[in-house]
């Protein structure tokens, strides 16, 4: 897959970071506002797909040398680990805990183990989407 579209490439360079930042915002906002692991992950993946469309496979693989299958596995481990962690505190699998802490600069911040679980979801979604797109794209 080789494209040479100047406009697309230039726009992509600018827009990519906006989408990525937006996706990270969506991910963290998930507990209070629309967003979350699924949407954030899909948005990130969408940004990467755009990159793939604008440039070619090899270039992207050079910029982001990530093995997306391992990313999927790490994501799964995160989610299962969060779930299993609650067993250590003698509560049922996947029980979450949360607390509010005061951090310098950020002020009152609520910390929630659900975020850890969501990170897992986020990573799996990116990993899966990119694995699918990448393997299909590489196939000649």
């Amino acid at each position, binding site marked *: 897959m080789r494209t040479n579209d100047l406009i697309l490439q230039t726009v992509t360079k600018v827009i990519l970071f906006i989408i990525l930042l937006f996706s990270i915002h969506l991910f963290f*906002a*998930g507990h209070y506002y629309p967003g979350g692991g*699924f949407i954030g992950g*899909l948005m990130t993946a969408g940004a990467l797909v755009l990159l793939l469309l604008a440039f070619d496979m090899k270039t992207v693989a050079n910029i982001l040398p990530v093995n997306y299958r391992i990313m999927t*596995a790490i994501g799964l481990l995160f989610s299962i680990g969060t779930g299993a962690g609650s067993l250590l505190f003698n509560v049922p699998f996947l029980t979450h805990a949360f607390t509010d802490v005061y951090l310098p600069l950020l002020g009152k911040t*609520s910390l929630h183990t659900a975020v850890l679980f969501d990170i897992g979801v986020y990573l799996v979604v990116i990993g899966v989407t990119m*694995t699918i*797109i990448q*393997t299909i794209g590489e196939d000649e």
Partner: protein
Amino acid sequence: MSLLHLAIVSPLLLAVIIPIFSKSIRQIHTGWFVLPLPVVLFSYFLSFISTTSHQGTVYESFEWIPSLGINFAAKIDGLGLLFALLISGIGSLVVLYSIYYLEKDKEQLGSFYVYLLMFMGAMFGVVLSDNLIVMYGFWELTSISSFLLIGYWYHREKSRYGAQKSMLITVFGGLAMLGGIILLYIMTGSFSISEIITQSDRVLEHTLLIPALICFLLGAFTKSAQFPFHIWLPDAMEAPTPVSAYLHSATMVKAGIYLVARMSPVFAESPVWLWLVGGFGIVTLFWGSFSAVKQTDLKSILAFSTVSQLGLIMSLLGVGAAALHYDGIDDNVFTVATTAAVFHLINHATFKGSLFMVVGIVDHETGTRDIRKLGGLMHLMPITFTLAIIGAFSMAGLPPFNGFLSKEMFFTGMVKILQMDLFSLSTWGLLFPVLAWIASVFTFIYSMKLVFRTFTGKYKPEGLKKKPHEAPLGMLISPVVLGSLVIIFGLFPNILSHNLISPAMASILPSLLSPGDMFDVHIYFWHGPTPELFMTIGVVILGILLYLTLPKWERAYHLLPEKLTLNKVYDKGLESIQTGSFKLTRFYMNGYIRTYLVYIFAFFILILGYTLYKKDAFVIDTAHVSSIGFYELVLSVLIVVSTITILFAKSRLTSIILLGAVGYTVALFFVVFRAPDLALTQLVIETVSVALFLLCFYHLPKLKKEESKIPFKLTNALISIGVGAIVTAIALSANSTKLFESISQFYVDNTYIRAAGKNMVNVILVDFRGFDTLFEICVLAIAALGIFAMIKLRLTRGKEG
């Protein structure tokens, strides 16, 4: 979990770790690690003799599935203990023997001992469980381990055939038995054998008695190789000889005997029981001994002889049931049949076990079991010859061996039938002693054939693969032990009578005993010039005559056409079942995915439509319906138009773009229906999906015009319209009926309080229903790996692909 439970499952536990031993310690034969267990268990079970010989029982139970009345209840009584001793005792000897029989460099010892231990544990479970369901589980496990052991040399086709045959027949019987167990549960409401026995009066009057009884007997007859189910046992001889000695003569095939004995207190008073058990037993006895004479393979002779001896024990148990119809035990002469059954059970285990081991030695040292190639081994293998003589003479019923005693008692039991005046035994009963006597003549003939064709006559070294010599000492220990037991039990039978036979009889015929009472068993060597003695003398004389003239009348066996044998019936039946089921399946599973989809959709329409109609669920209630907005109407029109257009799209690109249009419209629907998370997700997914479709675009085939006939299109259209209509009906009804309060309010109320979140959808996903999400990402990961595998891993199939 008590020590008794541990003893029962200990072989299974050892089976788990034995492969480690066989893998890591190769210098030492794995059998040495196995051997201590049965020895320890044997001595452990010996310690119970003092309890059972005073009619005591040991009962241990722990709850397994209490809600169904299924507990792992272990019970030791006379009968169970007798079998447990047989299993552990013969088991020890067989393991010892197998150490010398199977060479450690050539065989997969790990699997062999795993199967053997599995069998041992299962067998303990069968004979010591008081709960019928637990017993059934162990019962099937014995079938499975027997299957594995028969197929141990799986590269031989005959082994596989024999293994499959035994599996099919015994598991069929096992399933029948399960049916019987359930019928008994319906009648009594209990799975516990002890409890069912106390309710035997109720069982005997119940209309389900006969079906239950037949189901149990099917289980027992298949397992104990009774006519006509005996055909699996000769083929099971493909197993290594230690296995044949253990499973197929001493223990597993006696599980059927055990079952009959165990269920006797429940069923035995029924005349059907007496006739079926006794009748099938005596026919098996006759047919087995008759067929054994024509065999030329040593193990086949023993296999048919086992069949016939099992029939003998079975018939004794059947006839023994007659005793229940006479009161008192002092003058009750009919219990002698049961005594003989138990006594012969022990004797058979000893002499047949030793004979199998002798045959194994002959096979091992000469390389053949074909009686036509053997002969004159007497001088080369004197000890083996002596052992063979002891075993075979005991089998033939000659003094002073134990077989003589039980054979005499067997005759006594059969002759006593003539004195019975119930169930029309006085007329047909004559068949029993006559068949018994004829069968004994044949038994005598094949016993002689077994010994003298092998060990005397002309020595034919040219037909043998190896140069024969006496077996190593270790291989001789086990048959020597069994052979000495044959003599000891023959000379001093009363060491058994008090300790083992009487308690076992108490378990079989408990209703004849008043509490604290026990059977007084005395076995006499000489009991005067009775009809039995003359029968034995007759057997010997006629037997010798017929054995000497055997070559002259042997041809008579070929008169029965090959086609009519039971084996042929079995083979043909199996074949026609296979082709029949193949044809039946082929009839509706024709390989077209479309056909299957039609089935699915048709059922979808029928079942849902029927339910809607039957439950009167189809209602349209406009009370709670929300208003129709302008944007929604536009979107609806848009989605309907794009959907319909897909149907008529001619090119791939149009279809993909239209599908994308539908997807984006769905996203807009989510916006107007105030589902922001869904809208976002749908937008991104749709983008990625379209990208994906476009990526695959080049690889995908062009859309061709559907060239199909009108009926084809019509069925499709009909089914599609049906599905659409049903879905519409369901959607309408679901909105109009509220059967119960929605659980959604819980999430609305608790999202902030319990989970400290404000976005309910996300909180449900990660917190309240986190498990769903966890599984979902697993599914995603699997799909991704599947795609990766499909594309990256290509099987090289040469150029043809």
